[in-house]
């Protein structure tokens, strides 16, 4: 496989990957904890599903931030 382009764009690509990857990891860790608690709550009372879901998906926003940073770094920088 032949490498093309300059070092700068390579670094940008690595940075973008780190932004998405690390935020994904963070969100996953947070969501895992919240999700476990939420499933526990739902087994007790099914009507809590909607409210639990709101809490479960809250950390997801972190990934979106990472994604925005990644996209900005690739397409704008």
């Amino acid at each position, binding site marked *: 496989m032949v490498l093309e382009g300059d070092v700068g764009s390579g670094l940008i690509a690595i940075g973008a990957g780190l932004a998405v990857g690390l935020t994904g990891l963070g969100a996953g860790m947070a969501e895992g904890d919240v999700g476990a608690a939420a499933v526990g709550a739902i087994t007790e009372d099914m009507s809590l599903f909607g409210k639990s*879901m709101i809490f479960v998906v809250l950390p997801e926003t972190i990934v*979106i931030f990472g994604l925005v940073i990644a996209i900005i770094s690739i397409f704008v920088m």
Partner: protein
Amino acid sequence: MSRIVIVGTKSHMDEAIEALYSAEAIHLIDHTVDADEGFTLGTPRPYSPKASERLLKVRAMEKELGITNSVKTDAVPEDEIKSQISSDSVELVEKEVTSVLDKRNDLNQRITELNATKKNLELLSDIPVDLELYSGYKSIFSMVGTVVDDPTAALSGIDCEIFSSLNKKKGNVVAVFAKDADKEKVQAILSDNGFSEIPVPKETGSAASALARTDVELTAVSNELENVNKEIENLLEKHKTFLKASDEELSIEVQKGEIPVRVANSEYTFVIDAWVPAKKADSVKAEIESKVSGTYVEVQETRGRNLHEVEEAEERFKTTPSKFKNGKIVEEFQYCTKLVGVPAYQEVDPSILIAIFLPMFFGLMVGDVGYAIPFIIIGAYGLKVTRHKDWRAIATALFFGGIWAFIFGFFFFGECLGMHFVTSSHMLDVEFSWEMLLGLHGLPEIFNGILPYEAGVGKLFHVGFLLKLSVYIGIVHLLIGYLCGFYNKYIQHGFKHAFMEKGSWIMGFIGVVLACYALTELLIYGTPMDDIIIFLGLGIVLIVLEIVMNIKHEGIQAILELPGIMGNVLSYTRLAAIGMSKAGMALAFNYIALGMIAGVDITPAVVVGHEVVVDAFITNTFNFMDILGLVVFAFLHLVIWTLAILSAGLHGLRLQMVELMGKFFEGSGVEYNPLKIKREKTVSSKAKATKEV
């Protein structure tokens, strides 16, 4: 909603209960102990205990016979089933069913016993001792059972006779005959070798002949069981209609009989508090007063939506039930609202907003004709066959989501299965279009002028545009949320309060949006300061105003929540991001599958452009790899399609629940649930009469 009080004499209780149910508009307020002096909770109607008892019997029979909800039966006229129940049909059927069920239980037990005996006899058949010879001695005892290790050597010091059959597969069996005096010693030795006793069946002759006899009996009993099972099936067919109908009728009777327990009773009178829709209050009053003699109905209050009225009300009258007022389609989206909570009486119902935006967001994220069509078909089919409300809600969301996905896929992205219809200059090197793949050179003329950006928006190419679009959609969506919040506060507390509490948030929101817009232009696009100063200035002024107004209301929190607005808006970029992720997968999958069909080397070391693949594809002759390639193509797209349900569906729902509803929805209400009789397996005498006329 209006609150009414129904007062009547206890002697007319049954008529009153009938009238309450036939009005179909009365939401009962449960009486609480000690709510009013001199009143207590009543006792169930005299017919109720008998009905409960019969219901219990019917349900038990249904369970035993295997009559589930999916068993279809015809509806029975109400009078008929009532007369059947009162002439003790339930008890007669129970007698018939129980006798057969008992027979089945006995047979099952016999089979278990015979199987156990059979197992023992199989072990014993290896010992050459007749069964009657194991017992009946004066000074000798016998021990027979399985062992782990051979005890012969250990027993050599004791005067005894040992029969053993050592078989690793079946198990080691030994029979020991010894003098009574040595009993303890023999027991100790055997237990050291892992002895476990086999009970010797009370039979005569060799174990093998007993085994044969047992086998014959087992077959006979099994046949009998089969016959009994057939009998049970016949009983199911014979009684299922009666059981289902009586289940429903008795449930209704029990429900009606329990009404006195929910209302206030004095020695001779009853008092019922209830909510009815304000429009129906007068008609309900007239209906009940005319139907039940000696009853008086008074409309106590008509509850407005201002919270001051709630504060003045007595504790048990504080929560007013809320009635959903939605059309047929929006009704299905109430399910999503209810996942969070039932809207309070003083709150707007977000179902209609969900009905508009959820399918739209879903469609934008999927945005592909090829995936949209299966969604539409599955949604329509689901709506046709399912009656369960959960599935109906999902089917509706899929159907309308599919329609939006088709619209976006056809007119906006111009895509089918991850490939654009028309070839364009901004295509990636490994991307294909239907035009080049199938050689349809008439396509560009058809789509000419329909699609934006020449061949439709490229999910992986016009990223900046899609991101901006999703942010703008987010701003509109959130603004609607804030406006709903403003409206809620307005109907609850009045304009001034709403302006101070929610109006300030709207200003803050607009301020943050303007300031962020100005900063993005300045920092990323390098727009001169002069052009954007007006946005930045206005934004900062609005933010400051918001903080000043809100600090009075919420304290320092007001400042802390401002960055959250930015988070909320950016959260909508998932609309673009999920579309991108699916497009990326589709791109890779198409490249792999079409490369396979075309017979081009697609290893990453040599990235061949689309021209090479397409040329090979067109000149390709049919061979085995084509079929494999097509299977891979279908499977990989199925993967994307399935992921689309999860990611697009859940993220679409999340944007409604977290971002939109978080701005105004509390969901602390109670659903309006009027007393009503729902008949499925029985036909009410009234309905029958009108049908016959």
